[in-house]
């Protein structure tokens, strides 16, 4: 088990160190997410009673767009410099490599979200942040990062990867985004929607579990030449 876990941490730590140095992923995605919420703030002219019902949609739209931008960079540092070959020639399983990359992407997305959320609170005068909402954001981000890391590795080998990544990724991750919006809405407005907030959270968890099993397996196939 130690042989499996250790490389996951080593790869994640390496990605974090490289990101601290280059700031390629977090800065670009953060700027994009902030742009989205600032534009919505001006475009929708939201009044306080409207905030709670619109907040989940705007937030998850910002997270999703910023996320796909971040995912696009996940394998650039590996492949453009030939280091992906070096990584794949290390005596560790492909699952460990995947989980290492996925962990770092998850952390980057959580960092972006934790910076976007306070600014959203200020801009929209939003006061419904709760532990439940944060839990939903974390659950959704886990599925997003897992699926995104896989599609980033697929798109990396394609010629027009910047176009292909969102085209491949969004249709698969849409159920998680919808479930996150619905669950967030339920928690923020404290209302019971059609199938109940708990079931939306359950749906996110099921998708997370499916992605956590399928994506590492698919990554092994994608990396095989």
């Amino acid at each position, binding site marked *: 088990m130690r*042989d*499996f876990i*250790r*490389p996951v941490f*080593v*790869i994640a730590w*390496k990605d974090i*160190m*490289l990101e601290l*140095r*280059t700031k390629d992923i977090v800065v670009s995605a953060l700027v994009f997410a902030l742009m989205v919420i600032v534009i919505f703030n001006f475009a929708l002219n939201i009044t306080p009673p409207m905030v709670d019902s619109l907040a989940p949609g705007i937030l998850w739209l910002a997270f999703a767009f910023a996320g796909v931008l971040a995912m696009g960079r996940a394998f650039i*540092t590996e492949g453009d*410099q*030939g*280091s992906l*070959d*070096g*990584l*794949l*020639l*290390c*005596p*560790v*399983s*492909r*699952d460990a490599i995947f989980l290492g990359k996925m962990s770092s992407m998850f952390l980057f997305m959580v960092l972006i979200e934790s910076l976007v959320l306070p600014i959203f609170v200020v801009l929209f005068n939003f006061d419904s942040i709760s532990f439940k909402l944060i839990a939903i954001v974390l659950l959704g981000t886990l599925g997003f990062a897992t699926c995104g890391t896989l599609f980033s590795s697929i798109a990396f080998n394609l010629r027009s990867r910047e176009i292909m990544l969102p085209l491949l990724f969004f249709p698969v991750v849409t159920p998680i985004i919808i479930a996150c919006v619905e669950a967030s809405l339920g928690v923020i407005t404290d209302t019971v929607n059609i199938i109940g907030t708990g079931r939306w959270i359950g749906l996110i968890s099921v998708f997370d579990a499916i992605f956590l099993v399928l994506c*590492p*397996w698919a990554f*092994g196939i994608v990396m*095989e*030449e």
Partner: protein
Amino acid sequence: MLISNIMTSMICKTTPSEIAKEPLAIRVEGLSKSFGATPVLRCFDLTLERGKRLVVFGRNGSGKTTLLKLLSTRYRADSGNIWINGISTDLEPNMIRRSIGVVLHNPMLYQDMTCEENLRFFGSMFDLSDLYDRISDVLCKVNLVYQKDQKARNLSHGMQKRLGIARALLHDPEVLLLDEPESGLDKQMLDDVGPFLFKSTRGNRTIVMATHNSEIGLKWADEVAFLSKGTIVYRASRSDMDEGRFHDMFLQQLEKIT
């Protein structure tokens, strides 16, 4: 994948005594590899004894790099089998990766990490115990001690190549796979690095090297082979080699390249 890895490691564990008994470092049987509709290697067979150095010549596209990538487990063969020190690359790829060092055209480094950080990362991936001593040792061997805190992107092409060699030697592999290691290195550096490539702490390393450079190739080789259209068309030990035939073939290959 995780479950299959665990199952494979439980079922197919090769014992150290079995590995030690195996006289052949490399055994390849019926290996074929295509990229799309283009066949690169066809029913390729190869054996190489432990501690021997095989230098493979061949024109561009003859399959040299593909052969090295298949031996290194980076590529998966369409058909055929490869055993390194008696271990199948299909069954226990991680065990193979632990026992081989690979130098490809690309130095396989993280450009925004320093020389030392690159080596520390790859050493950690190999779970090496005395990592700091090993890093000092390999940096000394490739003469990069004073550049250890420089980022890889700030190094010259030759220095990056040397760092790539240091990365390949870090875990003291028994088998070394070299794809044109001489590119970017001056003659003096090749002479300095050569002995470190040949010897591991356990004795002579088994080396498979692909090159276009006949001078270095003949100097380093125990055996030479010519690869053409995915098959070996000539193979001889360095001592029994017909120099005239070798040079004819080499010139023929050179003409095709130019």
